[in-house]
Each structure stands twice: as structure tokens, then as C-alpha cells.
């Protein structure tokens, strides 16, 4: 959920930075957009992997012997 929520807010950041582009601190806004892009392509994919693990059922845990 955290990784996904992070993706949501980085997506929002990108949209807002794009909207503010004209006449504002362009270096800051460009950095914000590139960081958001990095998050979406390099970090957000973790959410899909976690979803697969979370929805795989409880058998791998309960079936293990120690």
C-alpha cells in the first residue's frame, strides 16, 4: 500500500510540476518530474510483485516446518 500510495503522490507531483512549468523555478520542477518518472518506472513495479505475494494465500506460511 505504501509503494502504491507513493506512486499516486509522485504521479500527482508530476502533474502539478507540469502545470506550473511556465515562469516558475524550472530547475526544481524538472528535478521533481524526473524524480517522479524514476519512481514510477523503477520503484512502483515493486507494488505488483508484492500484490502477487500477498494474494498467493497462506499455505506457504502455515505449511512450513521449523
Amino acid at each position, binding site marked *: *500500500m*505504501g*509503494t*502504491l*500510495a*507513493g*506512486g*499516486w*503522490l*509522485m*504521479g*500527482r*507531483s*508530476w*502533474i502539478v510540476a*507540469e502545470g506550473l512549468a511556465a515562469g516558475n523555478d524550472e530547475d526544481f520542477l524538472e528535478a*521533481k518530474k524526473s*524524480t*517522479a*518518472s*524514476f*519512481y*514510477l*518506472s*523503477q*520503484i*512502483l*513495479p515493486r*507494488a*505488483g510483485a508484492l*500484490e*502477487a505475494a*500477498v*494474494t498467493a494465500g*497462506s499455505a506457504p506460511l502455515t505449511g512450513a516446518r521449523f
Partner: protein
Amino acid sequence: MPLLVGMCVHEMFKSANLAMSLCTMLTQASIDALLEHGSPDQRALYLEKLVTGEWSGTMCLTEPHAGSDVGALTSKAVRQEDGTYRITGQKIFITWGDQDLTDNIVQLVLARTPGSAPGTKGISLFLVPKFLPDSSGAPGERNSYEIVSIEHKLGIHGSPTCVIEFDGATGYLVGEEQQGMRYMFTMMNTARIEVGAEGLGVGERAYQKALAFAKERQQGRAVGAEPGESSLIIEHPDVRRMLLTMRALLEAMRALLYTTAFSVDNSRHHSSDEERAFHSDRVALLTPIVKAWLTDRGVEIASLGMQVHGGMGYVEETGAAQFYRDIRISPIYEGTNGIQAIDLVLRKIPLSSGKAVSSLLTEMGRTAEELAAINQELGGLLRAPRSRPVDARPTGLHSASTRANIRTRWQVPPPIWS
């Protein structure tokens, strides 16, 4: 001050020194407890001194056999004829339990009164000052408790973690008997958001240090550099990957923390009942996520920071190792991250019949569509975690809740992005 503004300041405290920041954080929690539940006399006597920092506050919950299971605690509180209580029992892991920086220390102690209900229901909250205030409010007689030992820990070495033996100490009841857990929970929710902020604060410090190091350390020849040239390590792709991972996580963490703090402020102060209720649910849902995700990522970031330093980070001279040690406590205390996961799945997802989570997921979906409309590639990435068959998540959530025997009927959230 709005929590949203406070959080920005607290983040800097935590970046500066996590161990020291815990003293002010616990004092703030004591202030919140007395503001909400203290008697007018207690507020008059203690609040000003706590707010100015002349006195500090602590939270005494944990006992040797009652950690995550707070309901197992056995410290006793016996009412005296004068209305005070005698507190007896051992408390452990008391952060800033003793020090000589302030004139007095206000220990807030959870204990049981005789004949109280078992488990968390029978617990009461007591105010146990180190020095009993005299008639003018000045620190007087030393209360009867002892600091038995100070723990040796992996990190936060600047924070004294005490074992306290209460030996018939004088305590003052806060609020009513057997309501202690309820009072504690009102504070714990804000404290959990604060602990999440530790991951951000320490992570930011670790990033700044790693970035500065990567800009001055020369090792090896980067791709495209002249033969014989020694490149700055920031030119190496894997170092850039680590720094960008740290930066991207930090910006997402900060956005989530501030979004939550914004909802905390709205849940308390918005003029509309409906808005207050909406934000109150949003805070309840996001709190375990903020606590667990920000602290786990804080550890990841501090670890990456050390990695950027290479061997220099593993020895003490750069300071990178301290961040890694310090932040390692945050996924553990204030409810372990496993406890946060239980809270999220069993209490927060079913909240308001599932409306709290479904409204958040709907909002996320709208952002993905909005982003896709201006940048198809990025919007596609944001949709991607939901590219599996749309019935996978509702089925998973539904069966998890059924297994946990939740009797509340709640609406399965609609598919998010479709």
C-alpha cells in the same frame, strides 16, 4: 500550529539527531495526553512546564512480559485515602526515562487498579513525577522509583533507555480508572505518524551525506571518461541508481507524510462535519501505512547511503553507519511493523464498511487517468500495478477478512484503475 507545519520542523529535528528528537516527541505526547484527559489542576501544574521544555515527559507502557501485548502488564496502582495512588512494578524500554537536562520528569505510567478487568480494558493511566511538585509547583520531594539500568542498544545511543522500578511511587490518576488504553491510543496514533517521520528525517540525512560523498570521492573510470582518468563515483551508473532510489523514495515518503498530516488537521479543525469524518477515516487508514512504509524505507535508504560510501561507510569515520543503526529501531517501536500490518488489514481496510479504502483507491485511479491524459507512458506505469485481472484484489481482500472473522459487512472496493 497545524500538524502539517509541525511535521516539516519535526523532520529536521529527526535529521539532526534522532536520539535527541525522541525527548521532545515524548514530551509532546505527554502534553497531548494532559490536554485531552488531564484534570484542570493537572493541566495548570504541568502543561506550561512541559510546553516550555523545562520539564520532560515519558510513556511507561512496556514491561518484561508485556511488549506488543500491552494487555499483559501487571504494574499495580492502589488508591490512597488522599486520592493519590501507590504505583508498584517494573517498566522497561522507557525512552528518556531519566536525565538531568530538565528540572523534573513526568512519567506517564500504565498500571492496574485492584479488581480491574483483565486485558487492555482494565488499564489506567497515571502521572508519576520524578519530583513531587510542592505547593508552589516547584519540584520537591523525590518520588519513590529507581532507574535500575540503562540499556545497551544498536543505535540511538544519545537516548537513555531505562528500566524503572516503581516502588510504591506516588501517582495521580489521569482521567478515569480503566480508561488508560483509550487515552493512550489517542496519543499513539499521532506518535505512529511521528515515528514514520523518523524514516524520512534520517533517510534525508543519509541521502545528503551520500550525495556529498559521491560528488567528491574519485574511484575508477566511468563509462565514456578518458583513459587514465579517475572519475567521481557519482558518474557510475550503479551509484546514480542508488542515489536516485534514495531521492525518489524520500520525495514519495514526504508527500505521503504531509498528505496524512493535512488530513489530521482537517479531521480536527474543518468546519464541515462531513469533511472532518472523511479526513478522520483517511488518517486512520494512512497511519499504519505511514508508520510501516516510511520506517522500512528509512532503513533501506540508510543502508543504501552506507553502500554509496563503500567500505568508508562501514567504518565510523564518515558517520553513515550511525544513520543505519539509529533508524533500525523505528520499524520496531510504537507498534512493530507487523502490528501495523494487522491494524491495516483487520481494522483499517474494513473501516466505514470499506469506504475509507475504496475512496483512496478511487482517488489513486483518477490520478492515473489524469496523468495518462498528459503523458501516456507515465500514466501507464501508474496503472500497471492494477494490470492483473481486476477481480484478484477484491477476492484477496474479501477472503482475508472472512478468514479473520470480521463480522462487519463492507463493500468490496471497485476495481481501481478500470
